């Protein structure tokens, strides 16, 4: 299951990444394997999305979210 497939309010736990370059940036922002992520909202036009991770809100594009595999 990918993070981009979650609906608003759903929770997942990060398992791994499919894109090394993106993973480096995401991990710096606290989005690491084992972290719990919640989809907080989706932008009015359907992209990007906002997730809650490590106690704060992070916005990322759907494509970027699709590189995050959940447990």
């Amino acid at each position, binding site marked *: 299951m990918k993070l981009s497939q979650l609906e608003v309010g759903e929770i997942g736990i990060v398992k791994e990444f499919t894109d*090394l*370059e*993106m*993973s*480096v*940036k*995401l*991990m*710096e*922002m*606290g989005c*690491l*394997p084992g972290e719990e992520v919640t989809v*907080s*909202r989706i*932008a*009015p*036009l*359907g*992209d*990007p999305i*906002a997730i*809650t991770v*490590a*106690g*704060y*809100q*992070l*916005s*990322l*594009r759907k494509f*970027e979210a699709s590189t995050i595999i959940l447990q």
Partner: protein
Amino acid sequence: MKADIKVALTGNPNTGKSTLFNLLTGLNQKIGNFPGVTVDKKTGYCPLPDGRVAEIIDLPGTYSLYPKSQDESIVFSVLADPSNPHKPDLVVVVLDASNLKRNLLLYTQVADLKIPVIIALNMIDLADKGGISINIDLFAKKLGVPVVPISARKKEGIDKLKAAINFANKIALQEESIDVETIAPELIGQIGRELNLDNPYYALQLAHQHETIKFISPAESERIEELEKEFSFHSQKAQAAETIARYNFINDLLYDTVKVPETARDETASNKIDKILTHKVFGFIIFFSVLLFMFQSIFAWSAYPMELIADLFVWIQNNLHQLLPAGPLTGLLVDGVIGGLSGVMVFIPQIAILFAFISTLEDTGYMSRVTFMMDKLMRKVGLNGKSVVPLIGGFACAVPSIMSTRTIENWKDRMITIMVTPLVTCSARLPIYVLLISLVVPNRNVWWLFNMQGLALTGMYIFSLVSAIVVAFVFKLILKGRERGYFIMELPVYRMPRWNNVAYSMYERVKTFVLQAGKVIIAISVILWVLASYGPGDRFKQIEQKYQQPQYMQKLKPDDLNRAIRSEKLENSYAGVLGHVIEPVIKPLGFDWKIGIALITSFAAREVFVGTMATIYSVEGSAEKMETVQKKMKSAVNPETGKPVFSLAVAFSLMMFYAFAMQCASTVAVVYRETKNWRWPAIQFAYMGVLAYAVSLLAFNLLS
């Protein structure tokens, strides 16, 4: 002021770093540039309890030492480059106590560079309120550094922080966070030996960043590249391993020292606000209302101070003319330099108000929501959610807006934003549009509610946005991206704006604008003044002699005589000659030589148009008397056709020309400054010129 100790402030964005900087330094601060890069360098002085003075440098906010934008790349250079004049004796890492985990990543990286470091645990009041309990003593003990809880907003703990800076160690005593060498043992060891480095993390950072940092020699950089190949070092994999190790360390540390309640903290309030502000329908309505309010305020609130500034300059000019002996030098100083200065200064109120709005919107966290909402739309045309800020700013002035594109990490997105921002209707175009619309559009209402002149003006604003979007789309197809675009951005918790910060940022921007744009405008207005005040050969003398003949001296009143002389001199000045020279080129657009002069002078700055028109139609007094300019222009008749010069077709053709042409020396200068390459301003100047000519031609032929 001489500093006894150099202190650098560093931390994530949105941690209250700037507030702390303002508290420590007060008005003792100055903004400069880091050499070679266009990153604002904020430094200030702070007196310490023992009487020494600390130089504080506020580094750009960053999430890690691995830079994602130009601003962020400066952080590592300042902290690590031994020859950097700002290399700090002490680093104060500002952490957001309510969001420690992500904040600590940067701390562990900075600490591993082995510079003496202190932690300022900011927003401790918010953490308390959210039920987060931090065992500060244990936290400090485990890291081996002084930790000072502060609240920069409430001005609490600042004296303790100053004392901690005062008594800080001269050597780095912090504990190791991770075992850096295990990431790439051979490579780190070899770089350390060959470059004579004693810090393994510094060696590792060089391995990652050697291609972009400026303080190592090309030979050293090549050697590092060779070593990386030899030990098959993979930068991204190494960075991933490092980040995971650091977060493991941080998780262990926080597990022992911090208790977070199960329910999330004040984010819920923020969440509620977000539900409305990023709502499918209300979100956009609110955004456009905010924009509308902003423009209304920029125009409404700035009118009076602008008038005051203009009047002040007229007063100064009049007085100087009376005080100083008449002559070319006085003319150059008073009409050239001071006249040019007044052209810059009148825009101060608009720029100040615009920046007050923008920094308030940024400070509250709303701007990142706008970015969030608009990203998809913007991406379709080759821009980026973050392009919204400069494009909105472009309505006031392209110069600060182009400076604000630095937050866009992606090179291609940033270039396209810079290229199209000057198309947005800036405040300098407003007087021109108002003047021309009032000449040709009847002042009456349609559909009861809408004033036709107002509609025409609104139309010009919308037209400028549409053209910016179309041009951006074309650039998207032409330009090749250098790197993949991405949009990973923090959405900070909503906070009340800190009015102090807003005021500081307003002050800074105005100062930068006056200094940067001021130089160019003064230089060009001096040149224009010379061109308009002198003519080839003895033409001026002949004109003076002609008007000394009795048929003029007796028939005309002295005022009328002077006006007649002035306007004939202008026609025969270098500027007038130039106007005649370009007349054949601009004739297809419906312009005569007089408009030609205004077009030429407007290449310094668009706002010169009204002033030039005023001079050309030999109106008494200053350019501010719009009514008289308007009347004169309305009654101007084309000698060939006998019809008014400013017909609907000519007026709209002229407006189109001003809508597209790059008639702003300050923007050209700032684009060069931001891109560090003459190609970009040249391309911009060319494409905007071609568009201006083509659209004007089209408008003139369609309407006449």
